[in-house]
């Protein structure tokens, strides 16, 4: 049996005195999708940033794609795609210039940039500065940026925000279940995102309040997280 893509045991992270995550333990097989629910400030984004190696865990064991964090963070970088609240793109550069810049950092060819601009239907607007594009268009470019280097693990923080239904369908082959990638999705949308989950984690004030295979999840338990 292959090694899990994610193995967390007692993960904790704090900001100063405030505890952002505590006692998070789970395991996720390669190719599976973990959907994380929880109200604002529950620790969802912090969890993604720890998994992306952008934040150090302060306690617990964290293994991502077989590498221990934070000691082996170098072995994870370049294998993870992060799509967060910020697009991680420069407003003054065009979509094409932004993607080419990221392609250089990841050692990816310009051909891939061209291919992805087409995949997110941004080919005709690729030469315009990002600041002139709508938020939905910027989000589509951000999706292309997140998968540019063909990451094994996708970390998605409300990935469909700013996207219209047509755009959601457009990006599905890249970041949806059909992509076949291991995914961690932070969501506030149980009706939409529960269907994508293999495993569900519910966070409340940084602590796991729900952890279960999707077949065993009662939607009422998710609604309870937000009360």
């Amino acid at each position, binding site marked *: *049996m292959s090694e*899990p893509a994610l193995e967390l045991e007692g993960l904790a992270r704090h900001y100063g005195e405030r505890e952002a995550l505590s006692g998070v333990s*789970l*395991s*996720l*097989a*390669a*190719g*599976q999708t973990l959907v994380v629910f929880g109200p604002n400030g529950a620790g969802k984004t912090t969890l993604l940033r720890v998994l*992306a*190696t*952008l*934040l*150090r865990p302060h306690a617990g064991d964290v293994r991502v794609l077989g590498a221990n964090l934070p000691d082996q963070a*170098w072995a994870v*970088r*370049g*294998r*993870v795609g*992060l799509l*967060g609240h*910020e*697009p*991680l*793109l*420069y*407003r*003054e*550069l065009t979509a094409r*210039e932004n993607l080419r*810049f*990221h392609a*250089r*950092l*990841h*050692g*990816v*060819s310009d*051909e*891939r940039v061209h*291919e992805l601009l087409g995949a997110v239907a941004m080919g005709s607007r690729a030469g315009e*500065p990002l600041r002139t594009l709508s938020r939905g268009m910027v989000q589509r470019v951000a999706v292309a*940026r997140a998968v*540019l*280097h*063909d990451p094994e693990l996708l970390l998605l923080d409300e990935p469909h925000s700013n996207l219209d239904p047509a755009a959601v369908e457009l990006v599905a082959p890249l970041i949806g279940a059909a*992509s*076949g*990638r291991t995914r961690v999705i932070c969501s506030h949308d149980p009706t939409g995102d529960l269907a994508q989950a*293999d*495993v569900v984690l519910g966070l409340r004030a940084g602590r796991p309040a729900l*952890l*279960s*295979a999707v077949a065993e999840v009662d939607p009422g338990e998710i609604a309870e997280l937000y009360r």
Partner: protein
Amino acid sequence: MSGVQTPQRPRETAQPVRNAGLWRTVAALLRKELLVELRTLESVPAMSLFALSTFVVFHFALNRNSVEGDLGAGILWVTLLFAAILGINRLFVADADQGGFDAFLLAPVDRSAMLIAKALTLLAYLAVLELIAVPAFALLLLGAPLGPALPGLVTTLVLADLGVAVIGTLVAAMAVRTRARDLLGPLLALPLLVPVVIGGARATSPLLVQAHPAGVGGPAIRWLLTLGLYDLVFGLIAFALFDFLLED
């Protein structure tokens, strides 16, 4: 909860290279920096305008047709120092505000590439600044062309700029993630740049006497060596510290 069978992910055309190479990364970062500056014109025009305005103020405030020696060198270097601070303060702002730091940290690249690229960016800003400021200084405050002093002055400027670029990059990286970055940057940079200004001014002073019709003198080698040593020491410190500044 694990072990659910999932379809094999189809291989895409991306062929990630685990390390893009230091100099390729530096080139990509440098190109991005210069493109952003060309589009926004946030740093270099402000630095240049500041220097020009300061020379005009000195020209009228001193009410002299020409300055020379220590006074001239002091005016030149203090003005360049404060103009450089404007550029240092803006050096990482786009990265901090638009997620460039995170994007860089997610990539499998040598962190030193950012130090080198940012220092080269600042060096380029300083070069443009001095292309504008030094002739203006000669016109407004020397009252005579720099002429034979130019090679010595260029050498001094290059050595001092290296120090400003390295120290400025280090300080800007420290300050940019703090809430008081606009305040902290200059507060950290000024004391560290004082030796550069002293070295630059002392090396330049005899050159400005030489440039003056009645003057004599040559470049102060002792101060050029001091500048070179300071550059080397801070270059090594920056390489040792920079990775930690980017980490959480």
